[in-house]
């Protein structure tokens, strides 16, 4: 669109710098077409100012308010389900995934070392196994306690 026309309008709306306003004033003094358009814009603006139609809410206050109050009460009763927000600074947010990955790696290495390194530690591992799946039997075995328990549920049906 013609930049000159938009500047005329911006002048009317008080959006121009002093230098630009002087430039527009020069156009208005010398250009009849610019003056005519400016006058039309100005007349339209002044016609609209303070002449917005006045409307009344087409409902009674009680009816209108009841829906608002109902919604507010519902919100007040609803539990706060939003997840806790992470409030760290940007570098903490950036570093968080790396920290989690590093922690996971440390845990993984520790577990592998624990399993393969010291044979004596394996006695603390206990197992739950189901050797006879069709019979729903469950067995529990502990090296530390030197025991094995087998539980067979009764077949009532």
């Amino acid at each position, binding site marked *: 669109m013609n930049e000159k026309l938009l500047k005329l309008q911006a002048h009317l709306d008080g959006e121009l710098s002093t230098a630009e306003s002087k430039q527009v004033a020069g156009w208005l003094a010398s250009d009849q077409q610019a003056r*005519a358009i400016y006058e*039309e*814009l100005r007349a339209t603006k002044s016609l*609209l100012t303070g002449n917005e*139609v006045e*409307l*009344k809410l087409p409902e009674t206050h009680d009816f*209108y308010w009841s829906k608002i109050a109902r*919604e507010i009460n519902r919100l007040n009763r609803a539990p706060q389900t939003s997840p806790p927000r992470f409030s760290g600074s940007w570098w903490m947010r950036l570093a968080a995934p790396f920290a989690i990955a590093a922690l996971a790696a440390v845990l993984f290495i520790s577990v592998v070392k624990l399993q393969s390194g010291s044979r004596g530690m394996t006695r603390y591992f206990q197992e739950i196994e189901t050797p006879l799946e069709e019979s729903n039997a469950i067995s529990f075995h502990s090296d530390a306690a030197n025991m094995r328990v087998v539980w067979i549920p009764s077949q009532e049906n």
Partner: protein
Amino acid sequence: MTTRIDYSGMTDEALVKAAQRGGMEAFEQLVARHRDKIYARAFSMMRNEDAAIDMSQEAWVKSWQRLKQFQGEASFVTWMTRIVINLCLDQLRKQKRSRADSIEQLDEELGGVERQMPVVNPNPTERLERSELRQRIDRALNQLSVEHRTVLILQEFEELEYKEIAKKMKCSIGTVMSRLFYARRKMASLLAGLRREEFNK
């Protein structure tokens, strides 16, 4: 014995403070005081009674939720009006996604339409009562596209600066300026047409 507080005599500021402390009755008084203005702004943008009622009620609920954030930089009613405008703009954007652009918009984007319009004198005030003039301005606004009407409402009635309008409408300042220019020229032509009708009676 409990004492009933008379909220009707309280200022908006006092009512807001009471509502911020959880006073629903104070908030209801604010709704009663400003419901017409908030509804009218919603209607001016949505052009539909049911949609305007829904938007205005949603705005009141939202304001209740955000009431603690209200610090009193602007008046309460200005703050409320901004909330309802934002909700209406969101709703209009959703509606726009599901409809094709009008020919009028395409014309505007191609450029030149507003320059082809003859310059008119949009001054029908001589023979009209103020209430009738307002009705006619409203009818003329109704003939504009959503984008042109919205930019005019935000500039002329809400007195927002170009950059604020651009931010709200999620477009460039240049787009705001061209839409505003087109909208004013179209309004001038519609209101001049009304004057011609008036003389032909």
